[in-house]
């Protein structure tokens, strides 16, 4: 798909995210907005029929649900049922409730391990996983990093949504990650660093990842927390907060 169309979809997804969180009165806008381009790229171009996607930072599910709705995997009218009793669209995604997703997520640090376990038995496909930089605090995540390198899971491609914010503040304040690129290199991963809002860079990174036949790849996608909503950008207050009516209107105006 061409860049203009992808940008249109991304803009619509951002509107859906704001709408969904506003109507539900809860949700995680900051990380949802930062992860849009990667998710849109995966669902509208990168992923082939056999390929699989594991979302690790499940709190950004407003973005996942909106992208799946754009793709026709979720009926659009269902988006408004997010967090309602009985909805397929749980506050955090659940494998047994929503058709088409691989894993239950929300508790952090568990997604890469499942993607890696899956990738062992899916050598004829690519297994994609999106993680947040905040969840790199979790030990479980690094256990999976070691495993993927040991078993040379070159079909495993991880995107880190590097938005530099976690719940209570910036990554630098709460728990600095040091040089993430060098950490992964030291763990024998193939590392690519990109602007996570640039569709061409995302595509090129995946192509490069596919050319490495011996190591798993991490694509560190540098993003802006709250991307596209001026007052949310880089402001940790918007990790898990729904906009009020005035804020909602302001956000939507900025997204036309």
């Amino acid at each position, binding site marked *: 798909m061409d860049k203009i169309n992808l940008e249109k979809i991304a803009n619509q997804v951002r509107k859906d995210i704001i709408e969904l969180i506003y109507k539900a009165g809860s949700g995680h806008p900051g990380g949802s907005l930062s992860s849009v381009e990667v998710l849109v790229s995966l669902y509208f171009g990168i992923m082939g029929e056999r390929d699989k996607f*594991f979302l690790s930072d499940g709190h950004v599910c407003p973005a996942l649900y909106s992208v799946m709705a754009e793709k026709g995997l979720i009926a659009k009218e269902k988006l408004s049922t997010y967090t309602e009793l009985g909805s397929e669209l749980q506050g955090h995604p*659940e*494998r*047994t409730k929503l058709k088409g997703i*691989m*894993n*239950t*997520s*929300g*508790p952090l*640090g*568990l997604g890469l*391990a*499942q*993607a*890696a*376990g*899956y*990738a*062992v*038995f*899916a050598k004829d496909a690519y297994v994609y996983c999106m993680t947040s930089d905040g969840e790199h605090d979790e*030990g*479980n995540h690094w*256990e*999976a990093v*070691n*495993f993927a390198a040991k*078993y040379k899971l070159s079909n495993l491609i991880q995107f880190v949504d590097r938005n530099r914010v976690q719940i209570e503040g910036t990554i630098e304040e709460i728990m600095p990650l040091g040089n993430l690129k060098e950490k992964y290199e030291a763990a024998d991963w193939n590392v690519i660093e990109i602007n996570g809002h640039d569709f061409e860079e995302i595509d090129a990174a995946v192509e490069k990842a596919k050319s490495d036949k011996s190591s798993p790849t991490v694509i560190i996608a540098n993003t802006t927390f709250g991307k596209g909503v001026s007052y949310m950008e880089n402001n940790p207050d918007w990790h898990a907060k729904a906009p009020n009516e005035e804020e909602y209107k302001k956000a939507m105006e900025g997204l036309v």
Partner: protein
Amino acid sequence: MMKSIRDGFGEALVELGEKNPDVVALTADLADSTRVKGFADKFPDRFFQVGVAEQGLVTIAAGMAEAGKIPFASTYAVFSPGRTWEQIKVTAAINNVPVKIVGAHAGFGASMYGATHESLEDIALMRVIPNMVVISPCDYEEAKKATMAAGLNGKPTYLRLSRHDSPVLTKPEDSFEVGKANVLHEDKNPKVTIVGTGPILSEALYAAKELEEGGVGVVVINLHTIKPIDEQTLVRFAKITGAVVTVEEHQVIGGMGSAVAEVLAKNFPVPIEFIGVRDSFGESSKTPDELWKKFGLKKENIIEAAKKVILRKSSQ
């Protein structure tokens, strides 16, 4: 005859691997002592050594189950489910995929290593999670059957294994069905039902023998599956005997006895005495038997509890 439960598991896992190519095994640097080494040697491509990384062990196994495999994830019970409870809840149970959590050296199995390595809470941890099946075989033969059954049940399952050689209480031809308790011993005119799980059932059988020598008839139930629990058998013998003693190598709080009490309180309340560890940690000893004595899990304790519960029944 003395044989170890973990050996029964290890041998059955190889057999299961031969029968079903989807069976895979993972361990956290404990292939030998959890007895998955036989499987690893036979099926090197289906064996995964994850290192000392129990959280990874369980969550990687969950990913494999999502890919259609039947992973057996083994380490000591203190580490998994001990350390991995939330990973099991989210990635095995909420996902509802057939990950097999193999908790080795359960109970006082690692007595020489002290309280940190003694798993007296794992039944409580596992039975509280929806979708989980909890199986605690009592001997070598039953461990084999339990392993085969767990491998084929399609559900997230906890397999509780002990380390030491223990008496073989069941026969190869005895039936084994997950969720169906077995009657190990039944007197014609029983006055008390002893419900046990795991190798501590040998003490229950010794107690039954001595009680019957003293004229007190006993039924001994092997509750090898703690979840789903066999309500029918428990209620049936509660009605016949009107008194129950539960016996487990585990904390009384939240354990197998608690599960029995939940069933009987709802369906047919009778006096119950609980043999198990009473809200304390274990400690080092050369053999588990010394700790069974210290924490009151022996034949003598069971006999005393049986007499007490019969008295309680008759004073009602």
